[in-house]
């Protein structure tokens, strides 16, 4: 039938064309609907609306990103890293300056920045050097004249040190704990090694004496003669304590607290090199074998199988690296920031420098190969967590909660609206009263009360399910009213009478015959409800009544951001979640608006 009609139309059209020339006449609504199903008209109208299609595209993109992203950026809920707090966005932590390339004498990495010195004694600083508003390691660096010809550098948590040929130790950066105030007589003592730690500085003299200055309260350092002071050959800074090798090749712990790292291995042979992570120590013995000790659960305890004799070792914050005599590099330990992913280009290495989460390997030809943490794409937050990965994971949570609550509310709305519209009578009256009671419950306060009272004693997952349920059960009345009105209109049409006459069950008339006819209205309402549910979820989480930290959602990522310090200095912590949430909701609303316009031909103003 349809086909014939089309053919006939075409024929008359071409006749007219032959008579009057090819002037195309716009079809009016009725003609158009005659050759196009209403659904196709809707789709066509929708596709023509550039704004809505754009919104749909952006939303789908965001949806896919937050759906797939967390697989690549999984989140550790218990994560806390005090050396990586509030780092500005950027990926330049391992960007070695060009001038230094091929001419490296030494590189040392602190928390977020690295200090390097070239063979001419010139010092370079790179990475996230801005420690606070006032302190910038790069800007505060003394001029090259003041530094002199530098032979060794060391980077700490928020300060850096340099040792020059005159035996002078120059420190710069944060001086809150006077960690940059080197003792005055240091020049005479012939310093041979320097090491900067967490708000503390160390210098080892030729005479085997350890000098230290800075924060003694936080750091566990009790240097006594019994521990071999005056006889020290090498030092390595662990998190807040110090490990050392004596000239006799023995390992000593320079702290007094009985931590895991304090139980140093004894009588293992002659130690030639030492390295430390935050919780573990590693020594290289004379015969090239390695010994690791410290926190037992740490992944740094698992020594890998190595070919060839190890010649030097280095330690980052949670990982170790070892260099063998044939120029191969091995890295092991925690790999949460890619710090043990040694690239295949790291062949024929002559030296490896590891620190924090960064690694620099110098090949025999002088090229620098780097791996580890490049930086944080969108910065890090107040617990040192990557904002980008929290954004992805939080987005997934926000969208999941929004979507499931919409599904719940749509199902309830369709059932109640359909039943009450079709059956009428006392069922209708009863359901309408229930609808009115639910809609007279104030939405936000009600959701707050339900999640705080019922949810208080629940586990986190149960809380999330509860939130979906609460949002779903509070937001169905408007859809139920809409569906009821539509069903009332459809109920009187012929196809329903026909279905009734054929003896179709009442329930299947409602849900199989009538509801598909009003599905377009339901879709629009569900789309707009999705936006509302996402907003409500994020508002609840923002207030602290929804999903609780540390599990992220876009709402609770903004939770701790309402104070002037965060708003001004750590803008990346609130700007990115705010942008993502806003764009997402804007897109959904645009799609919903576009759909509504597409369904309602009146609004097209033809």
């Amino acid at each position, binding site marked *: 039938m349809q086909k014939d009609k089309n053919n006939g139309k075409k024929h008359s059209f071409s006749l007219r064309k032959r008579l009057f020339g090819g002037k195309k006449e716009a079809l009016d609504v009725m003609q158009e609907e005659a050759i196009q199903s209403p659904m196709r008209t809707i789709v066509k109208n929708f596709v023509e609306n550039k*704004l809505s299609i754009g919104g749909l595209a952006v939303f789908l993109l965001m949806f896919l990103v937050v759906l797939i992203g967390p697989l690549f950026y999984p989140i550790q809920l218990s994560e806390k890293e005090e050396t990586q707090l509030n780092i500005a966005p950027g990926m330049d932590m391992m960007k070695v300056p060009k001038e230094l390339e091929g001419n490296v004498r030494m590189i040392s990495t602190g928390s977020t920045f690295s200090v390097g010195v070239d063979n001419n004694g010139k010092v370079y600083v790179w990475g996230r050097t801005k420690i606070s508003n006032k302190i910038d390691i790069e800007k505060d660096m003394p001029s090259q004249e003041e530094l002199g010809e530098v032979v060794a550098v060391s980077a700490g948590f928020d300060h850096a040190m340099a040792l020059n040929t005159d035996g002078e130790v120059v420190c710069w950066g944060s001086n809150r704990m006077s960690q940059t105030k080197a003792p005055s007589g240091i020049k005479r003592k012939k310093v041979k090694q320097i090491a900067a730690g967490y708000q503390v500085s160390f210098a080892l003299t030729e005479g085997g004496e350890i000098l230290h200055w800075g924060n003694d309260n936080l750091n566990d350092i009790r240097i006594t003669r019994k521990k071999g002071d005056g006889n020290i050959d090498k030092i390595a800074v662990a998190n807040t304590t110090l490990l050392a090798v004596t000239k006799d090749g023995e390992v000593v712990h320079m702290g007094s607290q009985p931590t895991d790292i304090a139980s140093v291995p004894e009588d293992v042979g002659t130690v030639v090199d030492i390295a430390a992570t935050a919780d573990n120590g590693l020594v290289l013995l004379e015969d090239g074998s390695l010994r690791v000790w410290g926190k037992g659960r740490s992944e740094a305890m698992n020594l890998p199988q190595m070919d060839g004799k190890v010649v030097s070792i280095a330690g980052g914050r949670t990982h170790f690296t070892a260099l063998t005599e044939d120029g191969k590099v091995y890295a092991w330990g925690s790999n949460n920031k890619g710090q043990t992913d040694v690239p295949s280009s790291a062949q024929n290495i002559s030296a490896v420098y590891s620190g924090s989460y960064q690694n620099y390997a110098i090949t025999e030809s002088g090229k620098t190969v780097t791996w580890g943490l490049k930086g944080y794409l969108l910065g890090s937050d107040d617990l040192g967590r990557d904002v980008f990965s929290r954004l992805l994971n939080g987005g997934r949570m926000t969208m999941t909660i929004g979507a499931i609550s919409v599904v719940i509310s749509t199902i309830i709305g369709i059932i109640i609206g359909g039943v009450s519209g079709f059956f009428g009578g006392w069922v209708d009256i009863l359901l309408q009263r229930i609808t*009115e*009671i639910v809609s*007279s*419950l*104030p*939405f*936000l*306060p*009600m959701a*707050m*009360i*339900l999640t*705080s*009272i*019922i949810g*208080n*004693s629940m586990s986190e997952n149960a809380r999330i399910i509860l939130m979906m349920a609460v949002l779903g059960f509070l937001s169905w009345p408007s859809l139920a009213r809409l569906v009821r009105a539509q069903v009332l209109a459809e109920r009187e049409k012929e196809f329903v009478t026909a279905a009734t006459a054929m003896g179709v069950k009442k329930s299947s008339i409602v849900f199989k015959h009538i509801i598909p006819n009003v599905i377009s209205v339901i879709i629009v309402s569900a789309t707009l409800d999705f*936006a509302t549910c996402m*907003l409500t979820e*994020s*508002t609840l989480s*923002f*207030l*602290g*009544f929804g999903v609780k930290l540390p599990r992220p959602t876009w709402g609770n990522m*903004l939770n701790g*951001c*309402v*104070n*002037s310090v965060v*708003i*001004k200095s750590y*803008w990346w912590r*609130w700007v990115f979640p*705010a942008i993502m*949430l*806003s764009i997402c*909701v*804007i897109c*959904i*609303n*645009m799609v919903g*608006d576009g759909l509504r316009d597409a369904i309602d031909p009146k609004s097209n*103003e033809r």
Partner: protein
Amino acid sequence: MLKYVGKRLVYMVGVFFVVSIIMFILFNNTPGDRALNQVQSLRGKVSDEQFQIRYQVARDKLGLDDPIPVRYIKWMGNLLQGDLGYSTFFKDDVIDVIGVPLKNTVIINIFATIVALAITIPLGIFCAVKKFSKFDNAVQVLTIVGYSVPIYIIGLVLIYFFSVQLGWFPISGMNSPNFQGSGFAAFMDRLHYLALPVIVMTVASLGGMTRYVRAAMIDALRMDYIRTARAKGLKEKVVIYSHAWRNALLSVVTLIISWFMSVFMGSIVVEQIFQLNGIGQMYYKGLMNQDFDVALAIQMLYCVITLISNLITDLSYGLVDPRVRIDK
């Protein structure tokens, strides 16, 4: 008309009781022993026996051993007599605790409503008259943005610009700390502190309201009597403001009322951001500190507000538009 109002009132009271029963049951199933909380401070100071007696007295006083229906009737009786309970957090009667915050919230809301109406009504009318012009399209996109962006993000952005960058307004609070002035100076100080919250609330409501006014106005302009009015040569101004606007007013009035009420709920977030001593902040504190008498009282207040707003909305149809005969 009177019969209709009466019917609605009876119905409203019914809904109120249903809601209050739900709320009461919810609050009474919360974990924690309120009697124990009250006498907790005495523990250790008096002998165990004495403590048990005090505890039992507290339980009896709170009626914790009665069955739920009895407790509900007691509570409802007190509520209707104006006794809203006792705040365990503020150590005072709830009615005294929520008085000042309620006043503050109402003041802020009235300010925000007036400012928002002053902007959105002219804007909405203008957009409807110049429908599909470039200006209108731009406003349409902006309004989608306006009602999509949650209020706390608007708050953060405006705090960033006005408080942090420009330094015009304080970031939070109601008064300058240790403010000594009185009269006009105190009023100006208060105004200074409340300006940004009011701006945030206004901006947050611009999007939705402008769209609403525009839609109502477009509907009114599409009517036949507008064509008639134009055909008989009336000035465009008269057509718009006298013929179309009066008819659009019907839906705008309902909007204003329901919006004014929704601002009460929305102000929970704003008061939380700016640390204003308002009813929303009080509700937040009540829930956070397990001070359930306060939370329950405010929750009931919210319910009453919603019910009254629904009633006024329905009645105002008839008042604004004589064509609507609600008593039928």
